[in-house]
């Protein structure tokens, strides 16, 4: 339940600047999700907040207190490591109970809370196992458990669900949301999962090469990305970008249209296209097409009764056309 304030925070490894000076406010009790391509500095950001990495410049404030030079242990944060960082010589029970033991809680309380967290995470059967005897997903859940068992000022979660299967992941996602609603503890979560980002976040921070590209509510970012990077990064399959005469005609350097905003019809439409590949996911299908505007992806509900090689017509929904200038900045929506 803490407000985290980053002021001009930056990090260099040697000469390489991994995080450019960035300012960020994580409001008390909010759920913030950090997304960005691999290697963009997400983990580094979390580690700086946690106090595991020395800052190169800038300050970290927790509840107004400058903790830039405070030891990690004294910041009162809980973290789930991307690499799990389980204690190899302790079994699951001891791993999860460790923070409580460190806090000097009485043994019966520890036992009870560990038991509760473990069953919440579906780890009831493995309590006596060592990390080397666990599956990847079980390990990750232990790492989560170690954080959940505490009552920290804030949670820092570095891709906490990446090793879980879809069902478990969905369950864990809801569990996290429920937890956040119940505790209203500040949460900072790194993920590369679109669904996680969109559903959990009150606020998404899009990081790219150590720079914050945009911050905002999930749907706001989805519908009004401030630049081409954000537009392309959120949403899967990614947004289609069209350059050339068609874009210029609309007064932009590039046009963006999401796959779900491309209407596909057998007859009639704006642009013709040839179906290359169909990815059928069951609930939906992705059509990979070649057209005069380049390679495009369209999204269809259910299974498409099309086959590769067929020619179809594509029509972008005008209300959902994004326009970008040469520098990649978004241009205002065109009236009409």
């Amino acid at each position, binding site marked *: 339940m803490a407000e985290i304030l980053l002021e001009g925070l930056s990090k260099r490894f040697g000469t390489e600047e991994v995080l450019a000076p960035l300012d960020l406010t994580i409001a008390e009790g909010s759920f913030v999700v950090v997304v960005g391509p691999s290697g963009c500095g997400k983990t580094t950001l979390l580690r700086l907040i946690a106090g595991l990495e*020395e800052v190169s410049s800038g300050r970290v404030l927790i509840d107004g207190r400058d903790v830039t*030079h*405070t*030891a990690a*242990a*004294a910041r009162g944060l809980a973290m789930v490591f991307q*690499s*799990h960082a389980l204690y190899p010589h302790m079994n699951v029970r001891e791993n999860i109970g460790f923070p409580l033991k460190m806090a000097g809680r009485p043994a019966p309380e520890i036992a009870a809370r560990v038991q509760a967290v473990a069953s919440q995470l579906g780890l009831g059967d493995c309590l006596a196992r060592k990390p080397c005897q666990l599956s*990847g997903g079980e*390990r990750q859940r232990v790492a989560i458990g170690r954080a959940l068992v505490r009552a920290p000022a804030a949670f820092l979660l570095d891709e906490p669900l990446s090793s879980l299967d879809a069902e478990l992941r969905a369950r864990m996602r809801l569990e996290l949301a429920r937890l956040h609603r119940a505790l209203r503890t500040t949460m900072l979560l790194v993920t590369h999962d679109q669904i996680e980002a969109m559903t959990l976040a009150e606020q998404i921070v899009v990081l790219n090469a150590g720079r914050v590209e945009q911050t905002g509510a999930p749907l706001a970012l989805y519908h009004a990305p401030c630049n081409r990077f954000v537009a392309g990064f959120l949403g899967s399959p990614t947004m289609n970008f069209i350059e050339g005469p068609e874009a210029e005609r609309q007064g932009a350097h590039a046009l963006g249209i999401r796959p779900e905003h491309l209407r596909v019809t057998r007859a009639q439409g704006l642009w013709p296209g040839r179906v290359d590949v169909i990815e059928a996911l069951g609930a939906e299908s992705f059509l990979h097409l070649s057209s005069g505007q380049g390679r495009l992806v369209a999204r269809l509900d259910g299974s498409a009764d099309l086959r590769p090689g067929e020619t179809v017509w594509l029509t972008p929904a005008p209300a959902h056309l994004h326009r970008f200038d040469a520098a990649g900045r978004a241009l205002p929506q065109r009236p009409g």
Partner: protein
Amino acid sequence: MSSLSPLLRKAALTLLGWSVGLTLAFPILWTALVSFRSEADALGAPAAVLAAPFTLESYAAITAGTRFTAPFVNSVLIAGGATALALLVALPAAWALALFPGPRTKALLMTILGTRMMPAVGVLVPVYLLFRDLGLLDSRAGLIVVVMLTNLPVAIWMLYGHLREIPGEIFEAARMDGAGPGAELRHVIAPLAAPGIAATALLCLILGWNEAFWTLNLSAAKAAPLSAFIAAQASPEGLFHARLCAAAMLASLPVLGLGWIGQRALVRGLTFGAVK
């Protein structure tokens, strides 16, 4: 140490580290100092020893002729040869023990160490007879074998300990990448266990260099190493502190130097960031 500023903390550590180091090394530093004093000065009070003039006369006295060089060469050959051999034999053994543990591994490890339990003084006569009959008395080969054998259990144990520290999946990855046992040993185990191997080699070298019982008792003139040189310096008629110190320094400098280099290799610790 938590809230100390990094700089202050480092300064405190520096102070602590240096005082520990200097305290532990003090007898040796003092020995070194005395070795550069004349015999008469060396026997004085500490303040006088400190103030006395520098001289190399003790070194000159004990290195006269070939009395130092021959044993020195022997020591290098014996300690080096024994170490190399011991590592050659111990590394595969430790690898097998560490990576393919079976129900008998622990018993085997104990047995290996058990071979060191016989007090050497108790078996000297049998071994002497054995060496006499094999014609190995006063031969470097014989001494290399003996020193190697006395160090082998320790080498296996140390290497075993270090190898067990390496996460097993890395070896599995190597196997999947088509590495046979030899390549695995060479490309993965050796470099990964490098600090451990360096520590083990250093230990074997030191133990081999300082081994004084077998080398003294099984050698005469041809194969005698520095332990014999030292035994020739200890307590002649009268106490020659300076000369004793000089001999001690000469005999120890090579291993001290090795330690200096070795510890640098040891620092190069590895972080296992690759394994989740």
